[in-house]
């Protein structure tokens, strides 16, 4: 197991190096001089030259790249142009809120999506199946920000069930609506995938055997079919983490949640490049890490897959 984890971690290194390289290329194609951006139009040439030197912008590109790589690996991501806070501090203060939101959303997606998919599959071509799949296709097609807006109007204004946007003092009630909205798309995808995966599995011989030997239908579905049907679902959870991280950007905007998504939009509006760079790098690292966890969880669902 430990060997496997170490090998997977080493396997992730080239991807991380690639991510850093892409971010470096992205930041060096920026039109205009970052040093000038920092001091503004009024800065005199000496100050700009000094800042360029401090930022290492006067060094050759290769040297800049090596420096950037070193800094990225050691999480030395520089300082925000706006408030002189280090990018890592800015990220860390916003991180807990976003992580909470992402985890709640994924939990909602799984507890709604998986049962819906199972029901659809075992009641194929009934109204349950049709309504579940209509819900799923709507969930995949609706823009997150629009669904969020409708939800705010309905649940906060018309029905008054939820106090409003923002996170108050961090009470869980404030996370309910954003998590539901953010979990809509992954939930819909999981429902569709669970359905098709279940449909494939319940036609297999070993399911017929399980029924033939007189097992209760519930046991056949939950113990024999579901565990096998969940393997592709686990993969999708890993992939969807990425779209969840993208969804965070708009969801946090709609619900005024002070997380990493909102930080990135603020940074984009202010053209605060070190923060933008930091957020992109950080999100990509998070994605690589999420996929590593998904990989490690496969043997739990399918004992044929071993850590070797």
């Amino acid at each position, binding site marked *: 197991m430990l060997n496997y984890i170490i090998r997977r971690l080493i396997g992730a290194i*080239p*991807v991380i190096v*690639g*991510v850093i*390289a*892409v971010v470096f290329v*992205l*930041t060096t*194609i*920026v*039109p205009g001089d970052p040093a000038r951006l920092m001091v503004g139009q009024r800065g005199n040439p000496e100050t700009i030259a000094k800042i360029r030197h401090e930022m290492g912008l006067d060094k050759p590109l290769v040297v800049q790249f090596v420096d950037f790589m070193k800094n990225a690996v050691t999480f030395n991501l520089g300082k925000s142009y706006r408030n002189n806070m280090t990018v890592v501090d800015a990220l860390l203060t916003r991180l807990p809120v976003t992580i909470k939101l992402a985890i709640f959303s994924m939990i909602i997606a799984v507890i709604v999506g998986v049962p819906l998919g199972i029901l659809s599959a075992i009641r194929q071509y009934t109204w349950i199946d049709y309504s579940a799949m209509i819900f799923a*296709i*709507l969930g*995949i*097609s*609706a*823009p*997150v*920000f*629009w669904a969020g*807006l*409708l939800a*705010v*109007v309905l649940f906060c*204004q018309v029905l008054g069930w939820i106090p409003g946007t923002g996170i108050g003092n961090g009470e869980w009630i404030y996370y309910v609506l954003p998590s539901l909205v953010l979990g809509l798309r992954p939930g819909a995808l999981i429902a569709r995938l669970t359905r098709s995966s279940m449909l494939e599995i319940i036609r297999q011989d070993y399911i017929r055997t399980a029924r033939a030997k007189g097992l209760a239908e519930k046991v056949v579905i939950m113990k024999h079919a579901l565990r096998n049907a969940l393997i592709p679902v686990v993969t999708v959870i890993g992939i969807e983490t*990425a*779209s969840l*991280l*993208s*969804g965070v*950007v*708009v969801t946090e*905007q709609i619900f005024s949640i002070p997380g990493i998504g909102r930080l*990135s*939009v603020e940074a*984009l*509006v202010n*053209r605060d490049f070190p923060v*933008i*760079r930091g*957020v*992109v790098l950080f*999100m*990509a690292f998070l*994605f*690589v890490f999420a996929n590593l966890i998904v990989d490690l969880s496969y043997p739990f669902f399918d004992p044929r897959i071993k850590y070797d």
Partner: protein
Amino acid sequence: MEAKTEIKNAVPGETKRKVEGRSLWMDAWLRLRKNKSAMFGMALVIVICLAAIFAPYITKYDPYDQLIWKEGPSAKLAPPSAEHWFGTDVYGRDIYTRVVYGARISLQIGFAATGIAVVIGVILGSLAGFYGGFIDDFISWLTNVIFAFPFLLFVLALVAYLPPSLPLMYMSIGIISWASFARVARGQVIQVRKMEYVEAATAIGGGDWRIIFRHILPNILAPIIVQATLEIGSIILLESSLSFLGFGVQAPKPAWGFMISEGKQFFLSGQWWWSVFPGIAIMALVMGFNLFGDGLRDALDPRLKQ
């Protein structure tokens, strides 16, 4: 294409029978036609495309025309009526007209960015699958790197660094979306590469490019078309998110995402129509592409053939 084969009758005296052969595409179309949800999706897409093309003929207003100057203050935030089907916005612009013209922007970006992504992805994926070895390792590594970025954030960062322009936006989205096509193409080429007809083409001295483009690509088109149909939907959603956040198509162009964002404040105070109708339009178009893409996948997948 429909190939007709005349079978000569072996039994003398019997009339000749015609046996009709069907191409893969004809077969797929016949299967697709039976799939109601796919046909519904296709109808949605066609209706919206036609609306976009014939926009000036299906509405009498101009998307930029501020009707408060002509019709007076009653045209400001007017609710849906027989005159203004989807109501008007705070400047007195007809929302139905803006939604119809907005389809042009979404479809343009959807098709153009997907086109760019398909070209880059298929070329890279085919090279990786065909040559294997170091080329494959390098391209697969690049694909994994691109996949590691959260899509929206990556495009946002790219768009933030570039001056605002529609073609630059197609390109940015296209350049980031090729990875899924590369993966599909690579997998397919690896399967097809070992087939006898590719071996035959190599044996008669066909060059690598000729083999890839003339012999391999036509045979791996089906999954790429399916992927492209589904991708158009995601790209339209992505563009609407960009516009909503204010980093996409610039005002006063009638981009759907931007309209939702403009109408947001008014929605919260009861004037729902400004934000609701563009949202329905996005959902309908994306749903159309998704349903059609799902149907295409089922129709083109020979394993499901019964």
